[in-house]
């Protein structure tokens, strides 16, 4: 079997496993899922009966499972009694906002992380190198949500000047599209800064380790022998080769990124999947919570698959193995 096909089948099996796991978690373990839904809102007996039929709860577990899969296939994620809206509509909006946050913050984290990592690694053993390592370990040990709270305190209460909540200024009127984008960008600053402060450490440490290893290779000696400048040696020759392990490790980062984004969205009220998860936990809005869990998990599985494809393209040695 070609490795690509094999990876794809593993992806499909994993998604199927998540769907089944989710079914047991939200539909079988609580006994009666209607009880979970009704916990958030008082329902009349007629409404309960209607829901019971809609979810196919009058049948056996297996037929319930089929109904559940059929509803999912139709994009039907249920109805949120807390928000009085179809869950799929709510999730659709939140997903877009999360993607904006993730794209911007991941770019910043990866780029800065690699640059700082190369900077430290090429000066192995120096004071600036050990200072970078210690600082990274300290920031990596901080809870993301607490760093966010500190920034809210500093920029919201103490110094002021930066928006600390939401994605746009409430009731703002925009003359043109550019102003609208600029407003979103301003709201992005603190959430991105929070994620960057904590998560950059991950890429700094890995890039540094990988660069130090590359610097001891024979071809680096050759480069030095050719009389290349230190800058060309480090940034052109060494960095390119040091980046492969960084790509591999970024797969491990996806899970940390999701956890960080959830916390940042909560602290800065960024209306994405994380804030939605938080609000549905507080409101005990189980249909929405279930949808958030499903969408985030499937998105992470797909992201892993794509990262794997990219990695195979970058390093043909893996494709052969």
């Amino acid at each position, binding site marked *: 079997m070609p490795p690509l096909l094999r990876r794809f089948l593993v992806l499909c099996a994993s998604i199927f496993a998540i769907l089944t796991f989710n079914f047991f978690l939200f539909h079988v373990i609580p006994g009666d899922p209607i009880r979970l839904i009704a916990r958030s809102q008082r329902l009349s007996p007629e409404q309960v009966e209607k829901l019971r039929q809609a979810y196919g709860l009058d049948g056996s577990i297996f037929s319930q499972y089929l109904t559940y899969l059929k509803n999912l296939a139709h994009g039907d994620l249920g109805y949120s009694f807390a928000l009085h809206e179809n869950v799929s509509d709510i999730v659709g909006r939140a997903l877009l906002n999360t993607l904006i946050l993730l794209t911007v913050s991941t770019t910043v984290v990866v780029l800065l992380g690699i640059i700082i990592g190369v900077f430290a690694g090429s000066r192995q053993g120096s004071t600036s190198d050990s200072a970078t390592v210690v600082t990274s370990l300290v920031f990596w040990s901080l809870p993301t949500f*607490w760093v966010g709270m500190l920034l809210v305190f500093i920029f919201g209460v103490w110094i002021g000047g930066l928006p600390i909540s939401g994605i746009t200024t409430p009731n703002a009127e925009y003359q043109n599209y550019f102003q609208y984008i600029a407003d979103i960008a301003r709201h992005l600053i603190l959430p991105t800064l929070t994620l960057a402060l904590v998560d950059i450490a991950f890429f700094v440490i890995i890039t540094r380790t990988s660069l130090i290893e590359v610097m001891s290779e024979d071809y680096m000696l050759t480069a030095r022998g050719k009389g290349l400048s230190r800058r060309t040696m480090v940034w052109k020759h060494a960095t390119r080769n040091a980046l492969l392990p960084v790509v591999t490790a970024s797969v491990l980062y996806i899970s940390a990124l999701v956890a960080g984004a959830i916390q940042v969205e909560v602290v800065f009220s960024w209306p994405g999947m994380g804030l939605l998860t938080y609000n549905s936990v507080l409101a005990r809005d*189980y249909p929405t919570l279930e949808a958030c869990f499903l969408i985030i998990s499937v998105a992470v599985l797909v992201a892993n698959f794509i990262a794997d494809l990219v990695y195979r393209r970058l390093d043909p040695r893996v494709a052969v193995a």
Partner: protein
Amino acid sequence: MMTFELSASDESTVVQSTGLSAMLRSIWADRLGRVGLILLAVTAVVAIVGPMIFPFDPTDVGSDASTILQPPSSEHWLGTDELGRDVFREFIAGARISLFVGIMATLISTVIGAGIGIVAGYFRGPLDTTLMSATDFFLVIPALPLMIAMGAIFGQNLVIIILVIGLLSWPRTARIVRSQTLSLRQRQYVSRAKSLGASDARIIRRNVAPHVMQLIVANTILVVAGCILAEATLSFIGLGDPDRISWGSMLHFAFVSGAVGLGAWWYFLPPGLGILVVVLGFTLVGHSFERIANPRLKGE
């Protein structure tokens, strides 16, 4: 058979007894490792002795509005929270809960991870394939959303939180232990024990487990850091045990009561610094231990 038994047990006890004190000494010799040990010792004293000297009474709430969110004073060293309770005493009580949850969850995760890793690596075959597929599955799915979903469904108490974190933190341990077991089972003394008629259970107990121990300990120390952070995050989301306040739940209440916006730094700074000290302590000691246990990492 008799001589084999003696030599095997002698060997493993020697490894373990010189192991532990020598390990502590080498961590102490490492600069960052020493900082980590000091941080952990301070936390341990605060968490164990602290609540005896400064007991926290969660029902000791303020009598009126003038007692809530008060800045530090001689009466309340770290001020009061949104209910007028003493933040200093709450902080010390929280240390105990945060450490307790982190360590218990780690124990569960280590037992599962080490068990799966040893069994998969030792027996190989379809059992290995099945166990490792499950491990990879849990390694890939994002842990926090899953913990949040399970926490929200099973309810908010300390046992559930420990179980949820412990049951979802084992995959990396399983992977590391399995690869070490794979290399161990190729060693000569394992095939010798086998040809002498030792059962699989016996070989695992006598010849495999003692040799993956160092690795498991090093990994466990790092897992504690992750579990403490996981507990803090879950409690911050609002899934903490309402009766047993941890540093994470303190930050939850500080956040939802608007203490940050009101500038009540005495309320939200200490729990975060506490988490930083413990997590950094475990991380430093863990990395130091890992470098000693696995000399190949030293060059890095």
